[in-house]
């Protein structure tokens, strides 16, 4: 698909000579508009108008059944904070984003360092670690749902019963175990991808640095702390930003693995938003949640960018 697009673009070849001068001026001035028009149309229709509507709906009693809506001030925001589903969704989403970000970073950096050394079978190992990032995370969630099925007939439970002789473990039916399961599967699925990202940055560090450090008598730990880690700060910034925003927006994995249960234990903000805003058509309250979510994501991104800019300034 990718190839056909660039091939079709290469059809016209020669440019005719002798086009009048003023046409050139016209194209030079008029062209930016024309080329920017499609993306601006997308911006207006799919970003600007919906964002304005979300904000407006959040102050009204809008629902999908009547077109007649009334200004009700901050009532939706108050209701969102009182709704146990939304509150627990907010907490789980924050915890998920924070824990996966920290855990994946702590695993991916050492993994990248190992994958950057020479050893037999390295390319295979790299591909295997990266592979879970290729299929749909939703499908992986479904597969893990079968593996972690809390019944005695679940894949992991029957294996545990056969090998260790213990009874069924309620992987997905105990609230805390379900939360841990979701996070562990998320770490399993994403660590390799981030390790490859770090690896790309590691490969750009000149080996002279390490040679010089060896001559100065630095050990491996010292080299990691004084050379590798500081030079990885830009990669850490990128990886953490992706993990944090991805974590806050998460929907697929918890939903396909646990449906957000048991109870509201693994419910995410996005799932709440969809259920209340689309399925139950409680548009006002769901829009309030959407606006709060937008502000929260914005604040976290800005905070993270400030911190990492300071770190980068210090180390590079």
């Amino acid at each position, binding site marked *: 698909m990718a190839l056909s697009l660039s091939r079709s673009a290469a059809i016209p070849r020669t440019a005719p000579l002798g086009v009048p001068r003023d046409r050139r001026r016209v194209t030079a001035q008029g062209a930016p508009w024309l080329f920017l028009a499609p993306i601006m149309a997308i911006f207006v229709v799919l970003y600007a108008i919906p964002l304005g509507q979300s904000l407006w709906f959040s102050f009204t009693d809008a629902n999908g059944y009547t077109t007649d809506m009334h200004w009700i001030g901050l009532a939706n925001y108050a209701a969102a904070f009182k709704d146990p589903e939304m509150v627990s969704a907010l907490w789980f989403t924050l915890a998920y984003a924070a824990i996966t970000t920290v855990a994946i970073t702590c695993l991916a950096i050492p993994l990248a360092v190992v994958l950057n050394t020479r050893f037999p079978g390295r390319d295979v190992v790299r591909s295997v670690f990266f592979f879970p990032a290729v299929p749909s*995370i939703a499908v992986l969630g479904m597969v893990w749902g079968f593996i972690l099925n809390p019944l005695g007939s679940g894949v992991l439970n029957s294996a545990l019963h056969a090998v260790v002789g213990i009874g069924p473990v309620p992987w997905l039916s105990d609230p805390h175990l379900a939360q841990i399961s979701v996070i562990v599967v998320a770490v399993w699925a994403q660590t390799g991808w981030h390790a490859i990202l770090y690896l790309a940055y590691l490969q750009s560090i000149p080996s002279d640095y390490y040679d010089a450090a060896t001559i100065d008598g630095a050990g491996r730990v010292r080299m990691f702390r004084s050379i590798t880690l500081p030079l990885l700060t830009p990669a850490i910034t990128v990886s953490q930003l992706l993990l944090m925003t991805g974590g806050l927006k998460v929907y697929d994995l918890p939903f396909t693995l646990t449906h957000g249960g048991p109870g509201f234990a693994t419910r995410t903000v996005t799932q709440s938003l969809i259920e209340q805003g689309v399925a139950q058509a409680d548009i006002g309250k769901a829009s309030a949640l959407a606006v709060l979510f937008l502000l929260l994501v914005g604040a976290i991104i800005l905070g993270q960018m400030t911190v990492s800019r300071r770190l980068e300034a210090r180390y590079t």
Partner: protein
Amino acid sequence: MTRTRGWLTSAIMLIVAAAMAVPFYYILVNTFKSQDETARSPLALPIHATLAHYAQVLATTNVVGSFLNTLYVTVFSVALMVLVGSMAAYGMILGRTKLTAAVGGLLAVAFLVPGQATLIPIYQMLVDARLVDSLNGLVVIYSCGSIFCYYLILGYMRTVPAEVLEAARIDGAGAGRIFFAIVLPLIRPILITVSVFQTMWVWNDFIIPNVFISTPEKQTLVLLAYSAVGQFTTDWPTFMTLTVILLVPVVIFFLFMQRYIVDGLTQGSVKG
């Protein structure tokens, strides 16, 4: 000494990698076994290999139709967003005016807005436009991805020498012609990278089809798998077989595009 360390690393990493891959091995190997054999020896290679589960999946689920739906949505969405994104990037480098500065600022804001914040109004909008439960409706929503394409392409577009564009202009080529005949071929590497990235997103996406598609005939592959989980709760081999069939095109794509995927990873992160 280094040699021994190499082998030791190799042994440890291969074991860890094998452990990571167990779920994939498990679903693959059991699709070729009868349910009895799976229960008796879940991790062993099949003794009496059978394709019965594959025949059953092809006969009882709409896997071919869903494949075509997914292909349709992916091809049109990716073509549209890459075209719009590269047009926008070209428009930006044509000249630095108040217009381009304003557009650049707005797109930067849009880039950071999570889809969740606009989902409900977009749903209402598509209901009004009769584009809910329609594959074309999905293409409309995925066109949001143009902004990501624009960002990745813009960085690369700046490396196109201005003299090339100037020479074409002096030769009398119009802006449209310069764009299609000169700029697009020159930025081909980034177009491939961006297309690979966006293909993986659209092909694998679950949230948008799950919200917007309700008719079984219009399901994408991921959505088909999701409805099969409910349908086959007691029939695990059938679900696993469906999963394996779903993974086949993805794995082929991965094998051929691995290089571009890794390129995109670093380019995306360096620029975006």
